[in-house]
Each structure stands twice: as structure tokens, then as C-alpha cells.
């Protein structure tokens, strides 16, 4: 090395050979992500039924995403679901984490496991189960309400135009709050107790302590939890497919369900590809925004 010419780059600097090391991963990524993505984009420029000759229509399919009220509603529903899938679980997780930060709970591991359990069940199973729970005449939820004398609150949870989307959203909350909680309580445990001691010496109460110590320290964990759950919210398909098929009317139609229904049921492959790509872009934009916000240091 010492006898080499001055042309040798200093160690640690990128060299062309680096791309060779990247190649295997890049090839796999290219073959299974980039190529299909490019193909989907290509298809989205056509009006195509999946078999016969497609008609080139340029960006019209993307225009439909904005102008077609049915599709617009679907995207709006997806945004509403973010509230139920991401914001609510993280809020519940934070509350639990804040409580756990103050008190040492016995059998914490057990609690965590039980609360995390919904996360482990396949979404299809969750959907079938909640369809039964929500059944208006024999479902567990209405039976419970009637048993405690709240029969007047019993509802047609999935059949009511105004309630159906929230009912589905609450299933999402139930599934994902465990995930948020586990992430956040783990984060709480790494906060040095001295910070809490200092806050207490300064006379901070429970609320003050939460906002001054716990919340800022959990920035990273909150970002991870929000990113994961937002992605789940936006790509939500199985729950809708199994419970309501987008109904009643179009009250629970979501973009991922539209992709499926257009591509496999009504022969609008181009439109399905366009909706799918818009959904991808939306997921990318929102998660990017979340992470940008989380990375920024507090002023």
C-alpha cells in the first residue's frame, strides 16, 4: 500500500467497486420492486381490461382519481382510517406509557403480552371475528349492551351508513394499540430515572412530567409507531373485503379495495394501477412527513 501511487483514494471513501457489492441486493430489489412498479406505471397509462388491446389514454386514469367522486371518497375514507389506525392507538399507547413511567406495575410482561396479542392474529381472522361480534342480532357487542341494560345503544354496526366506517376503524384501533403501546413502553424504560427525579424535585406534577420528560424522549418511538400504523391504515384491504365489501352503499370503500375490485372484478386494470400508484405515493408522502417532523430537534 505504501509503495502505491498517489492515485489511490483514501480509505473509507466510496469507490466504484462498491457498486459491485450492492449489485445482488439491487438486482433483487429491481426485479421484484422496481420492474413491477415501472410496469404498473406503464399499465396505468392505458384503459385496459386485462385481455384485449389497451387504449392509450395518457394520464386520464390519474385525472379520475381526483375527479371521480367514488374514488375521491375512497381516499377520504383512508384518511379517516388513519385517525383510527394510527392516531388513536398512539394516543392510547402514550397514555399507558405515561402511566407506566410513574408507577412500577407488577406483571408488566403479562400485560404487555395480552395487549399485544391482537397484533399477532392474522387480519383475516380478526375480520371474521369482528364480523361476528358486530352482528346486529346475535353479535357479542349488542348482546353485551343489552345485558347491561344499554339495549338502546345496540346498533347495526356494519350496516349503518354513518357508523360503518367508524366501526371498521375501531377494529384497527383494537389491533394496533398493542403495537403502539409495546413500542412506547419500551421507549419509556430507556429514559434515565434521574430525569424524573429532577422533574419531581422541581415540583412537576404528573401531567407536567409527561409533557416535559416522557413525550420528548419518545419522539423516535412515536415516529416509528405512527409510520407503521399509518401504512396499515392506508393499505387496509382485508378487513373491508371480509366485513363489508365497501358497503353499505360506498360507506367503507377504500383505495386498496378499489384496486382489487377494478383489477380483478370489473376489468379496469389501468385504473387499478393508477389508484395503486397514487396510494403508494400517498403512503410515501405521509410517512416521509412523519419522519421529517420527528427528526427535527425541538427548538
Amino acid at each position: 500500500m505504501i509503495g502505491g501511487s498517489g492515485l489511490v483514494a483514501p480509505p473509507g471513501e466510496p469507490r466504484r467497486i462498491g457498486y459491485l457489492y450492492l449489485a445482488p441486493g439491487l438486482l433483487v430489489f429491481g426485479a421484484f420492486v422496481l420492474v413491477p412498479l415501472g410496469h404498473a406505471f406503464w399499465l396505468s397509462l392505458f384503459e385496459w381490461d386485462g385481455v384485449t388491446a389497451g387504449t392509450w389514454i395518457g394520464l386520464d386514469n390519474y385525472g379520475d382519481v381526483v375527479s371521480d367522486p367514488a374514488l375521491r371518497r375512497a381516499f377520504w375514507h383512508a384518511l379517516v382510517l388513519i385517525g383510527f389506525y394510527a392516531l388513536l392507538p398512539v394516543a392510547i399507547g402514550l397514555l399507558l406509557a405515561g402511566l407506566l413511567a410513574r408507577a412500577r406495575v407488577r406483571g408488566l410482561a403479562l400485560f404487555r403480552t395480552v395487549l399485544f396479542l391482537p397484533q399477532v392474529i392474522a387480519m383475516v381472522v380478526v375480520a371474521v371475528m369482528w364480523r361476528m361480534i358486530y352482528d346486529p342480532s346475535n353479535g357479542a357487542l349488542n348482546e353485551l349492551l343489552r345485558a347491561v341494560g344499554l339495549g338502546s345503544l345496540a346498533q347495526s354496526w356494519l350496516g349503518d351508513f354513518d357508523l360503518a366506517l367508524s366501526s371498521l376503524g375501531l377494529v384497527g384501533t383494537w389491533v394496533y394499540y398493542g403495537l403502539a403501546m409495546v413500542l412506547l413502553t419500551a421507549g419509556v424504560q430507556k429514559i434515565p430515572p434521574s430525569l424524573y427525579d429532577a422533574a419531581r424535585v422541581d415540583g412537576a406534577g404528573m401531567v407536567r412530567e409527561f409533557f416535559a420528560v416522557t413525550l420528548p424522549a419518545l419522539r423516535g418511538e412515536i415516529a416509528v409507531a405512527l409510520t407503521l400504523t399509518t401504512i396499515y391504515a392506508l393499505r387496509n384491504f382485508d378487513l373491508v373485503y371480509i366485513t363489508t365489501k365497501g358497503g353499505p352503499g360506498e360507506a367503507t370503500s377504500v383505495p386498496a379495495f378499489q384496486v382489487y375490485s377494478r383489477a380483478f372484478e370489473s376489468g379496469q386494470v389501468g385504473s387499478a394501477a393508477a389508484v395503486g400508484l397514487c396510494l403508494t405515493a400517498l403512503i410515501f408522502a405521509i410517512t416521509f412527513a412523519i419522519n421529517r417532523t420527528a427528526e427535527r430537534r425541538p427548538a
Partner: protein
Amino acid sequence: MRRSIPAALLLSLVALGAGCGTPGGDSEETAQKADKEAAKTVSKPDVAAAGDVTLTVWDQEVRGGQEAQIKRLNAAFQQRYPNVTIKRVAKSFEDLNKTLKLAVSGTKAPDVVQANQGRPVMGTLVKGGLLRPLDPYAQALGWEDRYSKLLLDLNRFSSDGEQFGSGNLYGLSQMGEIVGVFYNKKKVSEPPRTLEEFEQSLAEAKRAGDIPIQFGNLDKWPGIHEYETVLGQTAEKEKVRDFVFAREGASFEEPGFEDAAKTIQGWADDGYFTPDFNGTGYDPAWQQFAKGKGRYVIAGTWITADLAEQMGDDAGFMLMPGAEEGADPVSLGGESLAFAVTSKSEHPDVAAAYIDFLTNSDAATVLAETGNLPAMPVDESAIPQGLSADVFEAWGTLAESDGLIPYLDYATPTFYDDITAAIQELLAGRVDPAQFVSGVQGKYGKFAETR
């Protein structure tokens, strides 16, 4: 350096996409080819002389009696023609529908496939020139005498795939199905003979604190059955058929169509359906009926076996009665997926003979013996007892009077979504019958315009 990465990525994506080529092929040429094929005359295929043939068949006859009949018939065919080997690929209905297009357009296409009626599957396959018109075989083998007109029309398309319900014949179906009214004999001693009597019976059930019609519409499609069962009584059957086949001048904004909407919305308002039907599943609803709760259930004959098993002689089946007593019955119904021959099959003669074998009178007996409802006439002695007897009789009556009306969701590629959502809104009282028909017509009009 970093800036240019997104741009380069986008460019390479477009390039990658462009490399995949324009989807599909020339449509005019394929239509002409199909017409030429349909106009041919052939003699009766001689399977025994065809040499060693392997026939690849994709079917979805995977449940209970369906599986039993296809296995028996396949075995019988191979026994009769030892030179033929049937390679059966069995798939579920959903799986078949999703993979069929890719399979028949690929290089190793199966010979015989089961294609779902209507534009989304059979229509697109015809448009793509992927199915072979079977008219020459229909003539040589006398298929026209085997079925009532509507049952053949359901398997017909114009060679360009645009006109459904007329044109070339692309397949034959084995089994029939009716959407009719099952009733609990303990509660209905004498089946109503007119629609008015039926409504009186509903009111009576309501007064007695029973559920008049068990109905679960969470799955969206059952609403079509309630609506169209009534539609058959309020509109002329030809008007319904014209609409379903999207024939010239057909419209949803017809008085008969609005009347049917009025009727079922009235039933919903009067509480004649299961409470909260839009939130109740299809299966839980008819299962409640099977347990003796409720007076009627409007359902397809596919639940016959389950009802007979659970209710025994207490279950009866009838067609929805019409406005006048003794008039020819009209009922929603259809037939199983058609067995069709692919254009790429190298053995169309053997394939046609196989389809003939699956649908001849011997096959009808096998179908009846395995608990299915044969679409073609069946020998008196093969008709089963009990609830099934009611169903067989109703099918016979409908075949004689050509009284079947096809499923509304055949009308346009997106009509399933359109009509199911609209019926849910109608029954929830969010639209009135006039808004319902004009809304549906609006969706249908969009399709009619683009043709």
C-alpha cells in the same frame, strides 16, 4: 449528484415499463376469425379415431355434489374413450376467475375451461379471441334442443365480445339455479298464489311477532335477489332481459323497475325484513330461517341441501308469485359456469365431444343423483324426493314457459358494484324509488355511451 437520483429513477422506470410493450392484440381481426369459425359446419366428432389425446380441463366443480358428478363423468368419458386422458385442474370459483384470463392467453392454454357468464370473464375472453365459437358443434350434436332459449343466450356473445346474449355460442352449462322463496311449512300452510297474497302473509307474520323475510345484506349481493325476485313480477321479462344484455334502447328507468323498488322499500319500511339487514350476513340470515325463525327466505337453490338437512319436511320452495293467479311464472335464475373450448386447444373436436358428454341426458341423471339441479331435462325417475322435488318441479315449469330472468349484475362490467350499493341505499331509505332508478340508469348510461 444526489439531486439527479429521483429523475434517473423515474426515467429508468418509464424505460422498464416501455419495454413491456402495449398490452393486448388486434381486436377486429380476432372477431372476423371467430365469425368464420362459427359459420363452419362440422360432422359429429369421432373421438375414438382422434388418437391419443390429453385434454386439460380447468373447472371449479370442487364442492360436495359438484365434485362427485364431475369425477363420475370424467371417469365415464375416459372409460368410453381409452385414447383420451383428462387432466383435470380443479380450482375454487374465485381462484378460477382470477387466473383464467392469464391461463388461456398463455402459451400452454388448457383445452376446456369453465368461463363465468357475462362481460367481465366470458366477454373479455371472446373479445380477446381466446374462446372458440361452438355453433358448428351445437348444430352437429343438437345442443339447441337441450336447453331453453335463455340458457343458451346466457352463453352467447357477438364475435367482438360487445353484445352479450346473442351471437355465437361459446359454452354449455351443466346445472341450473333458481332464486326463489323458501318457506316454513309450519307457518305457511298454503303457499300464496299472488304477490298480493304474499304481502298479506308478510303482514300476518309481522303481526304475529315473527320475522316475515329473513334477509342479510352485509355481503351486498343478496340485495339483488330481493329486488330482482320482485322485479320479475312488476316488469315484463323481456324488458329485464334487454337491460341485462344491454340491448339497444334498454333502460333502467322503466315503470316496472321503479315499482319493484317501491315494493321492497315498502317491505323494509314495514319491517318485513330481518331488523338491521344491512348489517347482517347472508349465512347467519338463512341459518336463522333454518332454525325455524322467520316465515320466508328469498335465496338461491344452492341452500336447498342445507335447508333439507336441517328442516326436513318443514321447508318448502316456491317461485315468487306474480300479480295474477295462474300466470306463467317468472323468476330470477341462471346456470352454472359454462364449459368452453379455448382457441388454442389443438383438439377442439374431442373438447366439444367432452362438453357434449357432460351435458347429455345420461349426464343429467348423474347430476340429479349427486344432488345437483341439471339445467337440461332430466328423466322422471331420477328426480329426488322432498324439498328438492319442489325445486326440480319449479325448474321444469320455468324451462317450459321460458320464465327465467338473468342476474342484473351481468349488465355492465361495473354493474355489480353499482347495483348492490344502490340497493343498500334504497333499502336504508337514503334514496326514494325514483332516485334509485335514475341513479342506476346514470351509471348504466355511462357504459352505454362508451360502446
